[in-house]
């Protein structure tokens, strides 16, 4: 569980996050939604510790980000996995090497065990036939699956995904969303996903935080969001003509 307490974040003079207060639950797919530029990526990077917040506090299962020493920070960051918007795979390494990379860099376990563990996750994301391929030889959906496997190979407590299905066709997008949800349940991870895609909201939105221009406007589940009376949420949810027509 990650608790966000009253955080502010600005760059120079532009305020990006304003008084964000929320909770992300363990074993659930938590979604941060909002239009492009609303501050989703910045919030995620604050949670990851890539950005320092100006004020406020983040609690990782009770451990406060405030006054955290370098070693404590490292300790927490070792429990995090991240799936980047563009996958961010290492392009000189093949699929197996990419997934093994965190094990190579951070653990002292022997070669056989590393390969075994990497292979377990490769099978989990259905990439057994692509082990030796380079990222440039993979489709967008496969790259995402490699990125997911790499993010969970260290058994993280927290998994962050920045628009994991952007640039994918709708069918593949749902496959990726579902995969993330299954993994979240299987390993009981606190998963936080950035999205602006209504499909994901409906499919896997167990706890949704809606951002607009750096403010948290609304929070709830996918069942609640369709019936929300909030004008701004409504504008977002029913921004597509199709959904407007389907509205009951």
């Amino acid at each position, binding site marked *: 569980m990650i608790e966000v307490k009253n955080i502010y974040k600005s760059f120079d003079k532009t305020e990006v996050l304003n008084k964000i207060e929320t909770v992300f639950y363990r074993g659930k797919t938590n979604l941060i939604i909002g239009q492009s530029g609303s501050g989703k990526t910045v919030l995620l990077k604050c949670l990851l510790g*890539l950005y320092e917040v100006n004020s406020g506090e983040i609690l990782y299962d009770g451990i406060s980000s405030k006054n955290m020493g370098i070693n404590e920070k490292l300790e927490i960051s070792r429990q995090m996995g991240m799936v980047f918007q563009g996958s961010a795979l290492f*392009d000189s390494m093949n699929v197996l090497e990419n997934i093994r990379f965190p094990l190579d*860099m951070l653990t002292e376990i022997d070669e056989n065990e590393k390969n075994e563990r990497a292979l377990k996750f490769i099978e989990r994301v259905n990439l057994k036939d692509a082990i030796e391929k380079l990222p440039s030889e993979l489709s967008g959906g496969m790259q995402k699956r490699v990125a997911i496997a790499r993010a969970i190979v260290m058994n993280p407590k927290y998994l962050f995904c920045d628009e994991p299905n952007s640039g994918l066709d709708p069918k593949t997008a749902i496959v990726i969303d579902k995969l993330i949800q299954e993994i979240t349940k299987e390993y009981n991870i606190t998963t936080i996903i950035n999205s602006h895609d209504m499909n994901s909201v409906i499919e896997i939105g167990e706890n949704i935080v809606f951002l607009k221009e750096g403010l948290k406007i609304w929070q709830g589940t996918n069942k609640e969001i369709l019936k929300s009376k909030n004008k701004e949420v409504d504008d977002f949810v029913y921004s597509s003509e199709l959904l407007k027509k389907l509205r009951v």
Partner: protein
Amino acid sequence: MGILHDIGKYFLMIKLSFSKSCKKEVLYKQIFKEINDLILDSIQIVSILSFFIGGVVSIQMALNLENPLLSKTLIGYATRQSVILEFAPTFISIIMAGKVGSYITSSIGTMRVTEQIDALEVMGINSLNYLVFPKVIAMLLYPFIITIAMFLGIIGGLLAMTLTGVPSESYIQGIQMDFESYHITYSYIKTLVFAFVLATVPSYHGYYMKGGALDVGKASTRSFYWTSIIIIILNYIVTQLLLA
């Protein structure tokens, strides 16, 4: 102001590259990869360039020394001096600012724009140590390249003279004339300074770049601009300190 900020950030980058080290095996592997990419892959172009430059230098020396009163050994002497003091260490380093420098900037810059560097940081890896430190270590072998350039430059001169009809004995006598070992020391000190610049300045331009794929090209150009200017200025300073 802008430049001072950059200089400060550059030195901070170097400090960070040498701290919070990754695992030894990982670094060894990276160092070998960099030796291959930065040093071994450069031998061919350096060889071709220095061989022909040596030839041209000796021809020009011969043209300027046509006076029958001057000994032909001067050609060999002058070629040796120019190649060892300037052409090999400085001229080749400027070429390397283009070859190795743009390679470093574009490879690190691509990692920056595709969030690979963020990915390293998220895993709790010191990305500067992982990416920059092995390059600095690999470039400790740079004097090896400059030695090849010196040798082939002088051989190029010899061949050009043989083709123009200058007796090779007088050229060889020339290259052995008034040999001062301090000049070699000076040359290798310069070379090591340039090696450090070649590894770090392009890394800086790649690591701290912003934007997308198009900006990687721009960063490479800017990296070449600064690396070559810094090399030329340091060349002047080192020469002033050691030879003047």
